[in-house]
């Protein structure tokens, strides 16, 4: 009992209580280039200010033609990113960021 009590007090003093943390869900499912994928994956790690909870990562190089077409069409109408016309992989990523509230 004493040990449990001590653990709870320690956890509280460090702010390790669920209601003091915010959870931000991540759910990506889209064709992306290798560079974009690398950029996304680089961010899905733990840092000093947050935790990343990994859940599912599915990567496939076989993108269905209609999805590819849709993406091409969307890319063509987009004025902001003319370089992102090429999509290498279909990325499905699920997880979430857990951030301590101040």
């Amino acid at each position, binding site marked *: *009992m004493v040990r*449990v*009590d001590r*653990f*709870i007090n320690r*956890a*509280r003093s460090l702010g*390790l*209580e*669920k209601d003091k*943390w915010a959870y931000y869900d991540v759910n990506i499912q889209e064709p992306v280039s290798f560079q974009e994928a690398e950029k996304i*994956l*680089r961010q*899905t*790690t*733990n840092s000093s200010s947050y*935790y*990343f*909870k*990994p*859940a*599912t*990562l*599915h*990567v*496939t*190089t*076989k993108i269905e033609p209609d999805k590819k077409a849709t993406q091409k069409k969307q890319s063509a109408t987009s004025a902001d990113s003319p370089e992102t016309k090429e999509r290498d992989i279909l990325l499905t*990523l699920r*997880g979430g960021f*857990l951030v301590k509230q101040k």
Partner: protein
Amino acid sequence: MVKDTRKYAIEIDGILYYLSRNKLEQIVELNDIEGDKWFISDMQEAITRTMTIEAPVRYAEVMVRKKLQESGEFAEPVSIITHWKKKKGRNTTDIFFTALPTRLFYRYSEQIKEHEDSVILFPLFSSLYYVLKHMRPRNPGAIVFQHSRFADVIIGTKKRIYYANRCVAFDTSDEQISTLWSTVKAEIKTIESENRIKIEKVCFLNWIDSGVEPEWDEDMESKFYSFEEEAISFNEKEYHLSFLPALKMLSGVKGISPRTEKTLYYTQKWAPYLNALFLFASLLLLGGFFWYNQKVDLLQKDLVALEGKKVSIQMRATQKIPHIDYKETFSFVKDLASYQRAPSYKEVVNDISAALSSDMKVDILKMDYSRNGMMIEILGKVKAPFGMAYKGYQIFIKTLTKKGYIVKESRFNTEISNSEFFITFTKRI
């Protein structure tokens, strides 16, 4: 030497004596002696004999009584005091007894009963018998107690009595006493002859009125000697008597007084010792009582302390254990630890990329995380000849295994120039 402090009343030839320490005096009646006493009597009118009776041991006395009455020795009811008896044959018993008229026996009994103090009664022949027993002769011996004009004779061994009788002279003149001794000698010879025995020793006991020690004829094979004597003063005259030391051979238990009389006698005799014993036992009990009381006190103190402890434990047991809601916090901390330990997507992708050979290409990669582990499925192709492709496939598995990935399932299909692989890995977090 311990002095005999016992008081004796001795009745011989109708005269009553009182013996205390070394002084003998004549008294009128038993009541003249104060205190408990032993009473040795020749019981006037009593006869002492040995007989061989045609009857079982149990009925020997009855048969003796019948025989004595039939022979005319007693014209009145007779009482038998048995000194010794032994089964001889199937229906035969040897008995050594003193017989006296029942009225006389009752008179002695009443006298003892009415006496203020305890009296242990012994027939005279009892003392002679105990002298013989004390001598413990292997071969037959004789005890002769000569007093006044009588000689009481007993012949036997430590196990058997052959003869017991009183020889009588007409008076106490020297001539008659000499005749008396001749009779004794003749009796001894007859018994030797009848029983085919040889009497080794004849022990002589004297009394204040005994004559001089007889001359023992050379033709008598047995050795004649006097029992140890003791100096006694009687009527301001010193006597050396051997009958009195003989009395010391007696045992009070063998007296013929009623059992209650003997019990009372010994109770009084041992009373001081018993009192001392009881006192000692009482002191012991008292000491024990105090010791146990002290022990009980200590135990009670311990008990009180233990009771207190018990109550304290019971109170603590009845107190409600405070509910600490720790599960949610604990689970959350565990989750955070799991996220901390879990390899990131990028780390896993880097591990896989580093293990792939240049000819290998991944088509599908799936990573699914749980709290304690993760599962990875990899489907890919190798565009190289079988040998190279399979080698690359093996290196791939080996490299990841070294990094803690465990192969759960693996398949490798080849079309010689192209190959396909499917591998499932797990990894503990």
